[in-house]
Structure formats: structure tokens, C-alpha cells
């Protein structure tokens, strides 16, 4: 057995707009039961959702920290308005480690230690090194990267940790426009937060009847659930130290437990795949990006 660093399991930011009470219950259970080391909190997709969880935020942070988990604040992926910039500054002063998802954060953080999120394009070692020199202690890579690129970036990362998403629908784009509102014939200004109707997003189907994409407000995600399984050992050997689970309306404690077992070599990738398939009830697993193929494919 090679002497590789311990693999950390993280819970990425909740991308969907769940009711605040459901979100609170979710995080309290994660605090009590999920074998994850780090939990990212914060609204990534739309600033109109941003304050909804405020009443429960401090409680969730406290409970997660009391359970020994590191809490990181994730920012919006696309910042445009002065109000959004102000909110960014406030979160930088909140005291939590920040995950920067828009380059705006790099200016606001001004060299303070931070995590670079998967919505900032870090796809080569030059960019990795520039960001590391500016305070990035960890870089969560975009989902599009193939295994060879991830390994190249991780191999020379030095003190900067590298994180990849190991489970969940994969974020494919961010926009100003709200496609959830459009699907309900509403404008974004009068959206009635219809994105909250779909706990795992809204399926967009092709004209030939194939389920292709998932709409989540201004964000577009894959329809299939991206998973890393066989790749994990190789990625760990090349220096990837953090594996992210993206929250879904599933038993995420069970997902986390299986991934912890996988990382601890107590369970085989094939067994985890079979169990995930059963949990997903017909929604496919995908791994095209990491395999260097079309992202929506599985091989």
C-alpha cells in the first residue's frame, strides 16, 4: 500500500433552492451523522435566494463545527450587481474560510487564505501557481477536466490542496438569465422563486425525448449524476486530497458513508456504483468528463 495522504471528504454547497427548514434539518443531520470533513455553505446560483437561509445559518455553522467539521462559505458563481459585491465583502469578513466562485472574490480577499471554487477556470498548472501565490490554500477543479489534467495539476501543487467533485450532477454553465423562470413563462424579476419547486432541478428533455440537462434557476447541470469511482485511487496517488459530494435530495448520509468506505478501501467501486444506481432509481451515472469523453457518457 503506498503512503498517500489521507483523503478528505467534503460536502459541496447545496445548489438547489430548498425551503429553509428542510435545509436546516439537512445540515443538522449531516452534522450528526455524515462522515465528511468539510461542509461548504452558501448560495452559489442566485442572489435572490441568498437571504432565505440566514435565520438558520449561524445554528448550522455552530452545529457543524461542534461536530468537528470545517465550514467554508461558498460565494455566488456570477456576481454583477453592487448589492452582490457588498454581500461578497460581508462574507469575506464573516470569519469563515471562503470558497471563491467568481474572480471578484480574489480582489476582495486580497491575498487572504481561501479556497478557489470550481466556477473559476483553473485548468492548468500556470493558473494554479498564480492563484496559490495569491492565497489559494485549496483549489476545487472545474468538472470538465479529464483525469490526465487533474493529475498533472495535482502532481505539482505543493502545499495547495486539490479537490474534485466525486458525486452529483455536474454544473455546466451559469448565466444571468433564469431558465427556471422562463420554463414557467415568468421573468426573472417576477420569478416567484419557482426554482424551489424542484429539489434536484428541472429536467430538460430533447425534442427526441432524451433527458439531457437539469435546470436550476440560472444554472444548467448535467442530467446524469457525475461519479468518480475507479479513478479515485489514481487521483489520490497523484496528490488529489479532497473529494466533494454535491448535495441532492437523496440520503446524503448514506452517500457520504459509502464514499468514506471507498476512500478507506473498505468497499469496492463496483459495489458503490450498484448502490448509487439503486438510490438514483433510473437516473444515470455519468463519468464522461473524467474519462476524456463527452461529459454525458458513461464508460
Amino acid at each position, binding site marked *: 500500500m503506498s503512503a498517500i495522504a489521507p483523503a478528505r471528504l467534503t460536502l459541496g454547497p447545496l445548489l438547489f433552492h430548498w425551503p429553509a427548514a428542510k435545509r436546516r434539518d439537512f445540515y443538522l443531520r449531516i452534522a450528526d451523522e455524515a462522515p465528511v470533513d468539510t461542509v461548504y455553505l452558501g448560495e452559489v446560483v442566485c442572489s435572490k435566494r441568498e437571504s432565505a437561509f440566514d435565520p438558520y445559518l449561524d445554528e448550522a455553522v455552530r452545529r457543524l463545527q461542534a461536530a468537528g467539521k470545517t465550514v467554508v462559505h461558498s460565494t455566488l458563481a456570477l456576481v454583477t450587481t453592487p448589492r452582490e459585491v457588498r454581500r461578497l465583502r460581508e462574507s469575506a469578513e464573516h470569519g469563515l474560510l471562503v470558497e471563491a466562485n467568481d474572480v471578484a*472574490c*480574489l*480582489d476582495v480577499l486580497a491575498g487572504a487564505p481561501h479556497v478557489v471554487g470550481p466556477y473559476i477556470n483553473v*485548468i492548468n498548472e*500556470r493558473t494554479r501557481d498564480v492563484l496559490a501565490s495569491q492565497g489559494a490554500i485549496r483549489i476545487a477543479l472545474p468538472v*470538465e477536466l479529464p483525469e490526465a489534467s487533474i493529475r498533472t*495539476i495535482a502532481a505539482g501543487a505543493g502545499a495547495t490542496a486539490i479537490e474534485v467533485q466525486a458525486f452529483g450532477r455536474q454544473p455546466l454553465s*451559469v*448565466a444571468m438569465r433564469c431558465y427556471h423562470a422562463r420554463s414557467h413563462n415568468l421573468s426573472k424579476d417576477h420569478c416567484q422563486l419557482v426554482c424551489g419547486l424542484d429539489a434536484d432541478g428541472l429536467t430538460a428533455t430533447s425534442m427526441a425525448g432524451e433527458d439531457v440537462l437539469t435546470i436550476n434557476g440560472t444554472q444548467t447541470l448535467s442530467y446524469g449524476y457525475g461519479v468518480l469511482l475507479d479513478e479515485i485511487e489514481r487521483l489520490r496517488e497523484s496528490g488529489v486530497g479532497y473529494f466533494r459530494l454535491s448535495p441532492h435530495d437523496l440520503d446524503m448520509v448514506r452517500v457520504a458513508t459509502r464514499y468514506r468506505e471507498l476512500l478507506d478501501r473498505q468497499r469496492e467501486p463496483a459495489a458503490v456504483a450498484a448502490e448509487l444506481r439503486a438510490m438514483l432509481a433510473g437516473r444515470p451515472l455519468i463519468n464522461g468528463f473524467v474519462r476524456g469523453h463527452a461529459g454525458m457518457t458513461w464508460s
Partner: protein
Amino acid sequence: MSAGTLELVCPAGTPAALRAAVDAGADSVYCGFRDRTNARNYPGLNFDPEELAEGIAYAHGRGCKVLVAINTFPPAGDTGPWCLAVDRAADAGADAVILADIGLLDYATRTHPQLRRHLSVQASAANAPSIRYYRDHFGVKRVVLPRVLSIDEVSALVEETGIETEVFAFGSVGPMSEGRCFLSSYLCGVSPTSEGACAPANHVSYVESDGRVLSKLGPVTLNAFAPGEPAAYPTPCKGRYLTHGRASYLFEEPVALNALAILPELRAAGVTALKIEGRQRSRAYVTQVVGTFRQALDALARGHAVEPLLSTLRQEAEGGRETFGAYRKGWK
């Protein structure tokens, strides 16, 4: 360029298009090398180093600048071709390079400090702190603003950062935050981000089925239309999808951006330059669109109306329909 005038920045997908743009009144042209280093990496387009040198000589001889787009993101372990492209642009005497990748910006800043750096739309800098980041760390002189901002937001950014801004005035509309869209690679495996091609033609197909034509990208149907019905090229964000059982252009209608009628507002917002999209379009398109915008800007400078020129542009709009995109409230 006198104060209050707008610089007209025009597409040059080929040496012939470059000459056409210069002759039609471009203040600047932008172009790229014939490889993955630019975001319009399509067959039959772009420049080799010799063609670039000739193009620059032609443009400079007529008072026109040449901006070289090296605006894809170099993949891990293979950044060499991108650095070489920056070196070649500098050697050829380009007036600026248009970059997006932070690592490549860092390289250009260190290696060619005198070479002017513009920030590509692919960097998706849509707020003042992002612009400050690129300005302060990499000496970026101009930002090409993403097509997601209203005129009021553009105006506020200009005022807050004092940087030169370049905004899209005509051409295709991209509703997604650019440089961060993986839809094409999700469907067909080719990455616009690092390979410079969204929905490349060799992954596009058309199939007849039940009296309809299906346009496909990779294995996925992106639209279905009657034979003879005009339909946009099947990029993922211009496709029709079903939600709630209803088919719609979920992301963007088949429309083209045309900001000609709001040029006075863009000028008042403090914009430095107007960008015409379309390095993949024909030389005739370039001549027509650049010529019309030249007339419009000249009319504007003399205090004349630009509306009479609108009809001449209609035929060039993709799918025949036009939009002000995000510039006007309500688009979102």
C-alpha cells in the same frame, strides 16, 4: 480616436476578411492563430504567423489596429502553444493580445510587459472587483464585457473602474457566462474552453424523421423543424428543449444581437469600443456589417440619427430576428 467617439472593433476570420474589415472602416480588427489558442478554432479560419504579419502590415498601413485573440484556456501540461502564440503576436507587432487564462495573463505580463493586454469575454469579468483584479495583477488595459450586462450596469462599471471597456454590438448572442460553459463538451466531448470550438461541424448532423429535420450535436437532438424552415446552427444554447412537456427555446431564441439603435446610449455609458462578432462569418458579411456600423458611428459623431441604417443590417441577423440582449431590462 477623439474623446466621445467609439472604436469599431471588427472580426477577421481570414486574411481576406481582415482586408475587407479594414477597407470598410474598422478602427481595429481582431483575429487568431490557426489552432486551439483562440475561441473560433474552426476549419478554414484564422491566421498563420506569416499571414498575421501581412495582415498587420495591411492594417497598420491604413491606420487600423490588430488585436490578437489568444483566449482559450491552455490545458494542463500543454501550455506551450499558448505561450508561443503570445510570443508570435508580440513579434508580429500586434497592438494587443486578448487573453482569458490567468496563467497566460501572468506569462504575457512577465514576458512581454510592453504588449498591451485586453481581457477576453471568455474571462467573464462582469463586476468591478473582477476587473480590478485583472487590472492590478496583469496590467489589463481593456475589458471585453460579457453579454450579460444591462446598459446601466455597463455604465456603473465604467465609472467605478475607469478602465477601457469593449462591448458587443452585433452578432450572435451567448446567454451563458462565457469561458465557463461546458454544454458543448458535455454533449459532444469537444471543449470550447480549451479547444476553442463550440458545437464543431464534424459533430453536427441533420437527420430526417417523420417529415421533420432533426439537428443533432453528438448523439443529442437539439432541434426539430419542418424541411425548409430556417433554423439556427445547433449549438446547445440555441436548441429547443422540453420542460413541463412543452417545447421551447429554453436558453435563447434564434436571434442576433443588434445594438445599432442604442449606440447613443452605449456612448453615453462611457464605453470605449464596440465589438462586431463573427470571425466565422463571410467576407461579404464583414463588409456589410462593418460598413453599416462605420456609417452609423460617423452619423452619430455628426449628431445625426442612426435608425435609417437599421434596415440594411436586418438581412445579416441570424434567423432574421434581432434583440438588444441583456442591454435592455426584461431580457433576464
